[in-house]
């Protein structure tokens, strides 16, 4: 009994170290980003604001109409939050996919579990998503819109962000070994950015016609369903048809993430060998 107890304590200590190291690495990465970029985290705001401003301007010019109404405000909010979330989703995928390549020196030179590097990016992702959530909430009154007064709306808002986060770290981790071997993966991710923005409900409301090809396309798009649910939740409207696909994506993401994490321990030495010195 005492033997199994001490084994349990050892395992707990091991996990504590792995998680602690993940947090230290995350703080280190954030610090480096701040040191190496004059504007630091301001870029989180600059790019979506630029997109939203362009969207607002083009829409107004095309419609030639007054853009001061609440409908126009919700359109701008959807564009602003959508761009910001997709940008963050992409960054998280790229960061996770490039994890082994970026940290190959540390993986070779230090006795740190690979899981700590994954957790570091996951922690950074939580911070990044939290910053975006605050910015979206701040944008609502700035655009002259009403904040949702129901608790359920806020809960769904949080669930949508969590689902987006889970799908991003899952896709990134699934791609990580392949991205270590083939740089094409990064080119692929980068070239997917614009199509993803265009097919996702960012510049237009989510299609809810089940016979539409775009609806079917958005079912397999991990970003589309949370964005659709999020837009409805913030407006205090009925939950979208995309709720179930979003939850399925969430569950699948957790399963695939855990599976990839388990495989990683044996994959990393193979990859370090193939990367050479």
């Amino acid at each position, binding site marked *: 009994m005492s033997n199994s107890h001490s084994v349990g304590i050892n395992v707990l200590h091991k996990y504590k*170290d792995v998680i*602690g*190291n993940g947090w*230290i*690495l995350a703080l*280190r990465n954030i*610090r*480096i980003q701040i*040191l*190496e970029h004059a504007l630091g985290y301001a870029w989180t705001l600059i790019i979506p604001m630029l997109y939203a401003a362009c969207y607002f301007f083009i829409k107004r010019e095309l419609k030639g109409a007054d853009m001061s109404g609440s409908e126009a405000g919700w359109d701008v909010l959807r564009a602003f939050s959508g761009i910001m979330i997709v940008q963050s989703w992409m960054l998280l995928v790229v960061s996770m996919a490039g994890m082994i390549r970026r*940290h190959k*020196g*540390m*993986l*070779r*030179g*230090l*006795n*740190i579990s690979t899981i700590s590097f994954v957790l570091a990016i996951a922690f950074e992702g939580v911070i990044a998503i939290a910053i975006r959530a605050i910015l979206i909430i701040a944008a609502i009154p700035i655009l002259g819109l009403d904040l949702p007064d129901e608790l359920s709306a806020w809960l769904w808002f949080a669930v949508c962000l969590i689902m987006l986060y889970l799908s991003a770290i899952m896709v990134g981790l699934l791609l990580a*070994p*392949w991205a270590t*071997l*083939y740089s094409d993966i990064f080119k692929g991710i980068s070239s997917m950015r614009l199509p993803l923005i265009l097919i996702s409900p960012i510049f237009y409301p989510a299609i809810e016609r089940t016979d539409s090809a775009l609806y079917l396309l958005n079912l397999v798009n991990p970003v589309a369903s949370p964005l659709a649910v999020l837009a409805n939740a913030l407006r205090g409207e009925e939950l979208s048809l995309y709720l179930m696909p979003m939850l399925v994506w969430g569950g699948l993401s957790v399963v695939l993430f855990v599976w990839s994490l388990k*495989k990683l321990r*044996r*994959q990393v*030495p*193979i*990859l*370090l*060998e*193939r990367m050479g*010195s």
Partner: protein
Amino acid sequence: MEELLQVEGLWKKYSRSLSASARYAARDLLRNAIGAEAGNEELRDTEFWSLREVNFTLRRGEVMAVVGYNGAGKSTLLKCIAGKLPVDRGKIVRRGKLGHLLEMSAGFSPSMTGRDNVSVRGRLIGKQGKELNRYISQVAEFADIDEFFDAPVQFYSSGMKARLGFAASSVMEPDILILDEVLAVGDLGFRMKCYSRIDEIRKKSAVILVSHSMGHISRLATTSIFLNKGKVVFQGAPQKSIALYNEAKGSKKKAANFKPECIRFEVTRNHKVIEENGVILFGEELSFQGECFVDVPITLSIFLHEQGGAVIGVWNSKRSNFILHPSQRFSAKLGPQNLSPGYYHLSVIGIDSQGEQLFLSIPFNFRVKGDFYNKIGHEPIAAWNVL
């Protein structure tokens, strides 16, 4: 003594082709993904064996040198032992905590200061609070890079980075310590500090090291293996591995025959023996005495090297018509050493009547203290007069 490392029938292969290498890795990843065993124990197209049937054991207190030429498989062996590379056949059993100095500057961010990088490294190895502060000050003291410790690492010279890396990595108490060419860093003074640190660690651990410096190996190792094209050609006394290394080297190019066991010597000042790494003052007179263990008459040459290894002076016994016969002891007065302050070493070679070099000693390191005027090593004193 407790057995800490066991390597049994270790085989490791590599591919010479980049595309084939990626292809094989992709297959291995897919096999791993479906939970199948690697199943790639045989050579595939473009692959070669980097290590073949390596077997040895290492006990606490032992220092094993892995000797061999570039491409012999030395670093691959160390990376396999460290668990950084998968093995294709055989097994490695490690008992106890593993420490390695493979990529010492790993994880140092160029934009962060040395202090911040060391602090992160310390926290990653589990140090907190006072223990972390002690670790940082120990590293700062050992690295000895003064105010640069608080400057971003991107402004460091390569020597400074190496100092910081060694200092940050060597503050540990492992059971098995793996060292890959780490002693080739920094200046002589720093290398001396590295020796002392490794000496401390090895008392409680099993050490396995790779170095191309036969002096380092001769000084540190208690046992050795000589690797040639991935195969263990010899396993045993370090001196024999060094001799094999020099013989093999000689087959490519005529070179120094190391055999430091052929000479024993001491350096004295005022009839007092100077300790290894001892200090002398500018202009002090040195003497040299010793004995050689060879069967033929020889002439001796004592070389004086500056910090970087360049020879700045030689005392050749031929110039004094001195020949040393077997079983004779010898002494040589080297005269006043007008050397500018810094680190130096002496080495001795013995040459037979045919002109063949029979041995080369282990270097004797010392430091000269005094006023510093310029960087030129040898500063003879002239008799100055006003005319």
